[in-house]
């Protein structure tokens, strides 16, 4: 530790970094003191990730200065950052599925030493911070929370004096978040600095002593989060007031059931997959059912079973609009009125290299006469794409733009618009606003609420509890390949759902049918 606690651990001044067509960081300044937990707050695309990559040596700044313990430094590589004492826990974990926990940790250290000694050190750090880990287990067998522990232990073994956490809670249950915060407070008390990147205001208010807010590549302000309202911080982050999605009047009761799942289970060739067991659910016309859960608990498997990308063992396990559909492929299910928004936008929901017109055809081929006698009518596909662009305010130069040229939020608006304009009876959407800026997210939420208002049944799978509580009529939780019963949203709380996400289910009741 430096003798003088008033010397900043890290001070950045005038950091700028440009990419083709985008100025990601523009004269950014940031000062981090020893022992503080400092929040870096901003929307997706505000430039947080770029700044952090510069600090960790993954990217080099075009201009600007960095000082470490008061001395000017340049950080040429992650290894150089680690030598200074900077550790980082990545948002998308930088882990290797087929390797063991110990091997993964060894890869993150510059001098890991012999494996046996390393295993002992892992055990010591795990015990000290209460981060239980089995060094010999292959990473693919770990839960998401356990994977994060691997990342954290890997960092701590490097004895970091600055620990960067990039959106660490997006994959944790509320209870796991509490555990993580305890560890972070313990680390700060030891004099380590923590740079905590997030856009979740409540967490930042609970944890951080200072917050620096970024927008569009610049620092737009800083504050003491405990003394600032969430609303004030949100406005700093977004720049304007936020439109809050509005629900229409409650839809009429006792509508038809559009989606039913009966004792759905899956088997898989893939050793990394979760298998579903005895999943039951029903969704009625005009209602929105939300499925919460920590990533990797079977949501991906449930979604591909629902979309038809994976067939079910028995046709009757999935019933769409009264028709047994478990044996049908995506195409046949679409003709039953299913529309589907996958989690992976670029590369599943859209073909990156293809134009928006072609991407309109990708799932819209069944409607609007875009295909006749085996031939594509490209004029109709272009007009359909233009309609989506107009209706949903997609910012783009037009239908000829390739999908990968769109920002995440705009692409998601396009995909959701493409599905909605097919007038589905049932819309299934995964993570509809994940990684989308707040303005687009509000628009998407409104579109989904309007769709339900019009009588479509909606099933939303999301890790974002705020989103689920905004949209859903009923909520269920996935854990370990099982689905809890649904609970009406006004009869439950974030804490209760959080407990279920951690695997604590109440006794199963047939509330699916009783609740609505």
């Amino acid at each position: 530790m430096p003798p003088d606690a008033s010397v900043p651990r890290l001070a950045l001044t005038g950091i700028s970094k440009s990419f083709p067509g985008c100025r990601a960081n523009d004269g950014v300044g940031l000062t981090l003191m020893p022992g503080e937990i400092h929040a870096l707050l901003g929307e997706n695309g505000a430039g947080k990730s770029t700044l952090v990559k510069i600090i960790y040596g993954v990217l080099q700044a075009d201009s600007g200065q960095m000082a470490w313990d008061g001395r000017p430094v340049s950080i040429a590589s992650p290894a150089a950052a680690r030598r200074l004492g900077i550790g980082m826990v990545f948002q998308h974990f930088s882990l290797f599925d087929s390797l063991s926990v110990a091997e993964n940790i060894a890869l993150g250290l510059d001098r890991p030493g012999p494996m046996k000694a390393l295993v002992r050190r892992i055990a010591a750090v795990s015990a000290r911070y209460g981060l239980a880990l089995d060094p010999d287990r292959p990473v693919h067998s770990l839960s998401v929370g356990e994977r994060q522990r691997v990342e954290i232990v890997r960092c701590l073994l490097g004895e970091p004096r600055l620990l960067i956490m990039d959106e660490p809670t997006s994959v944790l249950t509320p209870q796991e978040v509490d555990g993580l915060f305890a560890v972070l407070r313990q680390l700060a008390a030891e004099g380590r600095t923590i740079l905590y990147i997030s856009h979740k205001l409540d967490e930042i208010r609970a944890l951080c002593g200072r917050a620096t807010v970024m927008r569009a590549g610049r620092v737009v302000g800083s504050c003491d989060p405990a003394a600032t309202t969430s609303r004030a911080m949100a406005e700093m982050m977004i720049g304007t007031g936020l439109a809050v999605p509005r629900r229409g009047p409650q839809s009429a009761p006792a509508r038809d059931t559009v989606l039913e799942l009966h004792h759905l289970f899956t088997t898989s060739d893939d050793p990394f997959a979760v298998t579903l067991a005895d999943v039951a659910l029903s969704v009625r016309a005009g209602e929105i059912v939300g499925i919460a859960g920590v990533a990797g608990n079977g949501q991906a498997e449930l979604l591909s079973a629902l979309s038809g990308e994976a067939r079910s063992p028995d046709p009757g396990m999935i019933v769409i609009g009264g028709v047994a559909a478990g044996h049908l492929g995506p195409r046949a299910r679409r003709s039953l009125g299913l529309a589907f928004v996958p989690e992976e936008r670029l590369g599943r929901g859209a073909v990156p290299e293809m134009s928006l017109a072609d991407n309109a055809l990708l799932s819209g081929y069944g409607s609007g006469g875009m295909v006749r006698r085996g031939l594509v009518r490209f004029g109709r596909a272009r007009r359909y794409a233009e309609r989506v662009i107009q209706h949903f305010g997609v910012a783009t130069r037009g239908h000829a733009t390739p999908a990968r040229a769109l920002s995440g939020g705009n692409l998601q608006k396009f995909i959701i618009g493409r599905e909605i304009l097919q007038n589905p009876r049932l819309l299934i959407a995964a993570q509809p606003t994940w990684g989308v800026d707040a303005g687009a997210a509000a628009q998407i939420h409104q579109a989904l609420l309007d769709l339900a208002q019009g009588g479509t049944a909606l099933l939303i799978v999301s890790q974002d509890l705020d989103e689920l509580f905004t949209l859903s009529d009923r909520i269920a939780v996935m854990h370990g390949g099982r689905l809890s019963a649904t609970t009406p949203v006004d009869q439950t709380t974030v804490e209760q759902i959080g407990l279920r996400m951690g695997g604590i289910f109440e006794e199963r009741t047939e509330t699916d049918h009783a609740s609505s």
Partner: protein
Amino acid sequence: MDHVTAILVSVLLAAAPLLFAALGELVTEKSGVLNLGVEGMMLVGAVCGFAVTAHSGHAALGILAAALAGMALSALFALLTLVLLANQVATGLALTLFGVGLSALVGKPFVGTPLEKLPDLPLPLLSHLPLLGPLLFDRDPLIYLAALLTLAVGWLLARTRAGLVVRAVGENPEAAHALGYPVRLIRFACILFGGAMAGLGGAYLSLAYTPMWAEDMTAGRGWIALALVVFSTWRPGRLVLGALLFGAFTIAQLHAQALGLAVPPEFLAMLPYLATILVLVLISRDAARIRLNAPAAIGKTFHPDH
């Protein structure tokens, strides 16, 4: 040497070129790169090894030249796929087509040139062991090299940090990059190793197995080596087993011909190719096993800025 030992030795010799080439490709694939140019690199290795040995009279120089020639070709592949981000499948195919042509062009003057077979080098003491001595320790130096390299690769991949890093790069290059590993440099090294090994496999054919040069003399061994890597589920130990198995097929075919079996020789010659298909089918049908062992990023282009 009795008859059985003679057969076993011939199996071993037939396996050696496959083992060289497949071992190199295994390392390349472990780093996440699929190089379909093995056949071309083997041919160029074979012709260079032959030409240099014939010119200089030193087999050691020829062997070195073969490894370097294989490396040179693989460097071309690396340049295209790693720096210019070309498709690995297309580039590998191009490498094979190019290697076939280049070896034929370079080798034209050497067709029909006689060459002395690479001499055997009995190891002191060991070669006097009963059974194993004449089988394993009275062989040419390249056989010893193949054995040493197999052990070395097995040990390096499983037990050392270098091997761990190679596996990590083949599993998740983005993560390895984020941790600061030079993904493209590591892959470059693995591709070069693959090239050198394919060159050695070619040299074994033209200097030791059948000491001569003929166009297309590898006869698909480069492709069989690729299949062997899948068969081995990317483990060097099982690669030896696979290479010996294919050596046995090759020898069985020759012996059946010599015995004057009623089956036409062309059908016997089909045996290794049909066996390759059979073996591929048997291994590939177990999707879970492939998924657990195959390098996850194999064949995918890596761009550090994405």
